[in-house]
């Protein structure tokens, strides 16, 4: 008996997809099932925000105080986010609820402690919220997929992998990083500066809005500074 590598449901030897979670599998003798991920490529543009001229999603202006810990100010090359304590803020493109999408943004961390990221399929239920996220630590040069959530006072992030992906393609502090999250059906894929970082199968969420995330990982003293230069969303190309 072969078990699905994702959900452990029984898969018959002649089946190419898990009947429970729809993971595509390839049989490798003598008894291994390997996950197969589809190729996801960006297609027609849906949203493109040049933050050197436009406000980030959910914001009316390019500068202002968002909370006691987060403020932003306009710069010639984008919007500078200034985060004084361990916090992460999500800015959602609320007009477009999408199933399959390629979401991207370009950031430059100006100091240590910066977290950059993207979210997809964000769902709001009252004061509750769930979403897939691509999280990137510029200092550690690591990236990982996560589910981010909140419900009233409870909030947090759960990594979808046991180990974060160390990626040499992540540029250090002071250099720009173009990050991308591609979602199609139950497949999530991440790219940093054009390099593939990970592909995972995650069927829990099917539709929602996209957005960008900036944060302070709280591991160093002082404010984390991140410039976001642009944010874009496109369809998945056939």
């Amino acid at each position: 008996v072969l078990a699905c590598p994702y959900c452990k449901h029984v898969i018959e030897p002649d089946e190419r997809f898990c009947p429970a979670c729809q993971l595509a599998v390839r049989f490798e003798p003598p008894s291994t099932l390997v996950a197969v991920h589809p190729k996801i490529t960006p297609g027609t543009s849906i949203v493109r925000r040049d933050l050197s001229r436009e406000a980030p999603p959910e914001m009316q202006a390019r500068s202002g105080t968002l909370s006691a810990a987060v403020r932003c100010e306009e710069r010639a090359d984008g919007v500078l986010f200034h985060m004084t304590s361990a916090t992460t803020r999500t800015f959602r493109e609320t007009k477009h609820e999408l199933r399959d999408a390629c979401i991207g943004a370009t950031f430059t961390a100006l100091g240590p402690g910066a977290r950059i990221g993207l979210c997809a399929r964000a769902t709001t239920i009252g004061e509750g919220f769930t979403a897939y996220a691509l999280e990137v630590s510029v200092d550690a040069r690591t990236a990982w997929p996560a589910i981010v959530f909140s419900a009233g006072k409870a909030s947090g992030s759960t990594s979808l992998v046991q180990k974060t992906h160390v990626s040499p393609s992540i540029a250090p502090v002071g250099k720009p990083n173009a990050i991308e999250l591609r979602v199609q059906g139950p497949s999530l894929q991440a790219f940093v500066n054009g390099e593939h970082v990970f592909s995972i199968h995650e069927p829990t969420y099917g539709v929602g809005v996209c957005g960008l995330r900036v944060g302070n990982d709280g591991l160093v003293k002082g404010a984390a500074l991140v410039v976001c230069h642009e944010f874009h969303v496109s369809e998945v190309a056939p």
Partner: protein
Amino acid sequence: VSGPLALRCPSCGAPVTFRARFCAYCRAALDFRSTPSLAGAGRPARIFDLKDGISLPGTKPYTNWYTPKPGVGFELKVDPGRRAYGQTDPKLRDSIARITGVCHDPYGTFAIGARAHQIGALSAGYFFVLSPSRREVFARRDIASKDDAFTTVIVRQAAHEIAGVGATNTLEVRCADSLFEVYVNGAKVTAFEDAHFCFGEHAWAVDAETAQTRVTIEKFEVEEL
């Protein structure tokens, strides 16, 4: 083509999402001109025939008022504003879940949960609630932490097929990808599309509204569609 067969790529057989423009694996163009019906038989995954004297899955001891009654069902008494709840594997995307029960007073409802999942300290999923006293069913998305619960009602439907207080009702939910169909006593009462939650376990729930309620659940079943 009926049911989940319509959610397979006709070229390569890969699972596809409803309204997808092309297959993610073979890139064949897809054209959904109508909403597929989810009618048809499923493959049994879990059967809890409670007339056999067994307990509902995940029964929690906070009321201690759960009474298996062989030949009758599993009787629950629930305090006002409280919920009795339990979850069962397997995790599925496409499924049929069915619950048969009797609300003995106007204060109780019983429900099926679908695609229920935990994220950190939170739980989320769909709930399909049958209220015999109001003769209505409603579907909602729920997200809850230990202290807070939030709900979005997706559809609320009165149905004359629902038997009243003291009578037996069978609530059935069929789901495949973003498609949902709700049946009461064998009659389809509502259908809708919602893709927010796509995978998870099934659950049963009994809620008490303004006063303590007594509900007997006779059977709870989960099938793979």
